[in-house]
């Protein structure tokens, strides 16, 4: 009891008159108003990370991740935030990168086991459910902490078409046709909502550039990947030339942004 009280007094001194000082120490405790604070804190970790966006287009899925460059010494292309889970599935992450990497390994094992047992590609909804169940398990016990990352899974195949799912630290998976995670997610979602269904990749660039400016951070590197009819169902990083073209278009569009909102491709 004594250590708990001293923890309480510390928080008081920090002028954070929060009422949850006893109930936020482990994921196995509910607060009196029915919240699990550890899970909410995990989601805060995601909100502090730079933005990742996924858009489900008519014929494919596109991911864009804003990688903030914290040091000039970083090698270009290191610390990837987009992973290949299976040939046909890609994952874009936001939050604690180490947690995200561990989950990408878990997803890969799930996809691989499925293929080994049943002889075909894992359907994305099933993969999202399985990984979400795994993430949820870590929100049940005091011996472990929840994962501090959200991620977006995307795939394309001829029969089911493009699919997009997002999983957050609480362990729920949602299907989307466009979603954003990370610090500028609200601004990004607003931009995405303006899009029509059936759009192509260039808009992802505009979104990232728009929300990036609004965030007012310094230099960033854009990681862009796609999976769709154009890649024959394989998840790949967008080729350099197409990416550069899109970046150029995005920068130009931003400069013209003041003129009109009627930019339709």
């Amino acid at each position: 009891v004594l250590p708990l009280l001293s923890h309480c007094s510390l928080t008081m001194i920090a002028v954070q008159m929060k009422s949850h000082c006893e109930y936020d120490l482990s994921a196995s405790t509910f607060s009196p108003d029915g919240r699990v604070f550890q899970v909410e804190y995990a989601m805060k970790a995601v909100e502090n990370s730079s933005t990742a966006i996924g858009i489900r287009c008519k014929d494919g899925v596109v991911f864009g991740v804003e990688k903030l460059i914290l040091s000039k010494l970083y090698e270009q292309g290191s610390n990837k935030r987009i992973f290949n889970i299976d040939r046909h599935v890609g994952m874009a992450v936001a939050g604690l990168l180490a947690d995200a990497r561990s989950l990408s390994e878990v997803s890969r094992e799930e996809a691989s086991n499925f293929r080994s047992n049943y002889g075909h590609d894992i359907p994305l909804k099933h993969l999202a459910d399985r990984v979400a169940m795994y993430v949820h398990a870590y929100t049940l016990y005091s011996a472990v902490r929840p994962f501090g990352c959200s991620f977006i899974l995307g795939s394309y195949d001829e029969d089911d078409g493009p699919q997009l799912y997002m999983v957050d630290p609480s362990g729920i998976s949602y299907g989307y046709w466009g979603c954003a995670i990370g610090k500028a997610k609200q601004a990004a979602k607003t931009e995405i909502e303006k899009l029509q269904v059936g759009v192509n990749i260039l808009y992802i660039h505009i979104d990232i550039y728009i929300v990036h400016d609004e965030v007012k951070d310094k230099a960033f590197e854009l990681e862009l990947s796609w999976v769709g009819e154009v890649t024959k169902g394989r998840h790949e990083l967008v080729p350099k030339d197409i990416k550069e073209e899109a970046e150029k278009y995005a920068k130009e569009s931003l400069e013209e942004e003041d003129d009109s909102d009627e930019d339709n491709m």
Partner: protein
Amino acid sequence: MATMLQKFPSSVSTLNDYNALYPDWTQREVSTGTTIMAVEFDGGVVMGADSRTTTGAYIANRVTDKLTPIHERIFCCRSGSAADTQAIADAVTYQLGFHSIELDEAPLVQTAASLFRDMCYRYREELMAGIIVAGWDRRRGGQVYTVPVGGMMTRQPVSVGGSGSSYIYGFVDSNYKPAMSKEECLKFTAEALTLAMERDGSSGGVVRLAVISEQGVERQVILGNQLPKFSTV
């Protein structure tokens, strides 16, 4: 499989005739001697089998149903050891049902065939099972996959199996045409099975047929006196 009884060759003369103590059938396994067959057509599959189960020379069941449902639109034809194939079919039915509920959609025929293959290959030393998996799914329509003894798996437009199949390879190869209609496939299957049943001692009884398509499963039986007649028969 075989019992552990020691069998003496008849050339060895013994004071006590041990072989006479234990009838032959106690040392024979129950086998679906069999002729089985499946054909793909545009929109589904036709499956057929004879109905004889033997224990040595004794016909244990003359009206066997060798066309076993694995899921709503996926069936399998069983040949080889009756016990082995029933056990495998039960296990795969369970696994496929679980998988289908997890995915919340109808399972693929290829998935069922993969599950059969995994089991038949993993336990190939202990099993004697030749299985033909056939059915309909919304992705690839009617499909036939064959999983012979040893545990290989391959898709074929038409597949025959069982001890009686040896006698009808010529008939099947010369009479099969791609893009046959459902009625043509039924006639083709019934004729092939009849010819095999006439020549193979381990096949006989009635011809059981099943047609699987998007609409569901239609089953029929052709009794002995209704089988197609051939001139030498």
